[in-house]
């Protein structure tokens, strides 16, 4: 991962807000061997306050995972990053790996999608939860063992799980153990990348409830990336919708999901099957734009039923509290 200077960041770390995560003007390019590059994140601003639960919603390829990987400094070496990410007062991108190491575990931690591959199969679960505390010099081995038992209890697992190997746990138990691991060094921000996607429905609900509860009791900022609208509805107070590398809508979850202002959000909701409502499903015609070709104007215009000539220019996020990027909205046309 290398830093690229795009533009001076608009938000600075010195602001006296109680935000724990400030992403400003974030751009990410993935460079292909043939010299082309895919512009995966195309200018994202996102500020998350302490204790806030944010759900980032989008389909595959919209840049949601790339954004949080960039925030943790976890992008591969062929990625170029522009803009700024300030995590708990530390500029993550300023000094490359060095500054990223300073925030990982202790300021921000991540829960990955596949709970099986997030753990090392040859070590006992307890050791894997205790290790980061020891490595980061927060606790002695004995203290870390003690704390591991507390963490397991916190996520609803018996302390005996510490002696087990990952393969001995079910999917839901493993995801709980991974959450315990993420909490080991008492981070202020917890990123969760599709934390429930690989799990069964009943277990999904359990893990979603657990994450929301932990965020509230520990005052954690939870940034959950998912394609599952229902999961956002249940766990997040604020919903951010991404499309083709940009934020297209951002607001209180209930407003975004019941009165969407961006046509993409509205169509996505109409395309989602719902258990308790009888209405025809719609599919969104076309496919998202290619990210390795320049996108001018609104990226959704080609698929949007309401596109008009103004859409040739990229729309800005407008609104108060509940913002959306759409020219139709700006001009007062119904969404």
């Amino acid at each position: 991962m290398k830093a690229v200077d795009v533009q001076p960041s608009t938000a600075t770390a010195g602001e006296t807000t109680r935000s724990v995560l400030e992403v400003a003007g974030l751009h990410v390019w993935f460079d292909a061997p043939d010299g082309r590059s895919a512009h995966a994140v195309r200018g994202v601003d996102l500020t998350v306050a302490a204790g806030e639960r944010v759900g980032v919603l989008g389909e595959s390829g919209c840049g949601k995972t790339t954004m949080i990987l960039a925030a943790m400094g976890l992008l591969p070496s062929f990625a170029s990053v522009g803009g700024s990410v300030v995590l708990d007062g530390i500029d993550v991108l300023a000094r490359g790996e060095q500054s990223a190491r300073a925030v990982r575990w202790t300021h921000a931690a991540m829960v990955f999608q596949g709970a099986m591959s997030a753990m090392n199969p040859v070590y006992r679960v307890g050791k894997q939860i205790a290790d980061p505390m020891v490595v980061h010099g927060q606790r002695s081995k004995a203290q870390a063992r003690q704390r591991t038992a507390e963490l397991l209890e916190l996520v609803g697992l018996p302390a005996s799980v510490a002696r087990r190997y990952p393969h001995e746990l079910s999917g839901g138990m493993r995801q709980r153990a991974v959450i315990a691991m993420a909490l080991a060094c008492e981070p202020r921000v917890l990123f969760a990348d599709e934390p429930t996607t690989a799990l069964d429905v009943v277990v999904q609900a359990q893990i979603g409830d657990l994450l929301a509860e932990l965020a509230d009791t520990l005052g954690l900022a939870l940034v959950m990336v998912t394609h599952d609208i229902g999961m956002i509805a249940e766990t997040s107070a604020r919903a951010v919708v991404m499309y083709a590398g940009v934020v297209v809508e951002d607001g209180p979850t209930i407003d975004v999901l019941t009165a969407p202002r961006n046509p993409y959000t509205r169509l996505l909701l109409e395309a989602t099957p719902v258990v308790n409502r009888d209405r025809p499903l719609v599919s969104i015609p076309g496919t998202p734009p290619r990210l390795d070709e320049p996108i001018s104007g609104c990226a959704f215009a080609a698929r949007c039923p309401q596109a008009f000539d103004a859409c040739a220019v990229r729309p800005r996020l407008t609104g108060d509290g509940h913002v959306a990027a759409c020219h139709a909205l700006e001009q007062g046309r119904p969404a």
Partner: protein
Amino acid sequence: MSALPDPATAPTTASKDAGEHLLEVRDLAVHFALKRSFSDRLARRGGQVARAVDGVSLTLDRGELLALVGESGSGKTTTALAALRLLQPTAGTVLLEGRDITKLPHRDLRPLRRSAQLIHQDPYAALDPRLRTRDLISEALRIHGLAPSKQAERAAVNDALEKVGLTPVETFAERYPHQLSGGQRQRVAIAGSLVLGPSLLVADEPVSMLDVSVRAGILQLLDGLRRDEGVGILMITHDLATAAHVSDRVAVMYHGNLVELGPARTVIDQPQHPYTQALIYAVPRVHRDEERVRTLPGEPPDASRVPSGCRFHPRCPLCEERCRREVPGLLPAAGDPAVLVACHLASQNVSITTRKDP
């Protein structure tokens, strides 16, 4: 009304059904032998057996879409594979168009493969990356000897592509899988099944790998196929919302058994079995008109350890003494005989949301 046969004098359903249903599964069981442990060997015992499917009966008619719902490990995919005889059932019979396919010799299976087709979950893995769409689809025609001439083959492929909505067909026919989106790939996979003119399609989680914006298109395609072509579709899904939108009937599986089977709307709006209720209440909602009930404790069970009595009793919040001893049968529900439910308490109109104490 008088034209209706008197139920008492009408021929027994068993003999009548045999010719009527497209697919009829009776008391199907599929057991997998697990490795014998060291202690088993010492005690000279046989190894343990995972009872993945244990006595499942269901029917599917032409033009019907039946959703088989359950969590992973519930036996839904095993049931479907055994119904296609891609797995040899341990016990029970499978009648496809009235013919028992469980004992067919191997050489007679090819015509069966033509009339019963499987659509896989992952359209990225299901298509050979080195073949163009046209070759992917025509391969099946050649294997079954259905392409007498180049022109006939071409026409059949174009027809299949048209049916799945990949138009202009000439453009899509020349593309490789990597040039197609996930939804387009799944359409190619469906076209590859359709070209053989099957009467039964088994779709194993056909949309779970796809993005939300293209899911509806694939579901509408399946819905159209059964309406226009009269194909019977058995759709396996873990997603009740998907089942609610397209299926006529829903069959809910738990631990190798059917626990509830009935018209989709009835099962989803008024679930009778506590497990079905838990599944429905666990689905996260956008429009939350009621507070979601506490989630079900525990996880899907281990198929090698079958509890006594009702298999759901260790996780059931309503479990009573009888549930631990007696296995409940799959019987018509008291309120609505169109719904079959396997629960001792079903007749009492139970709900996991209502508490026993006020």
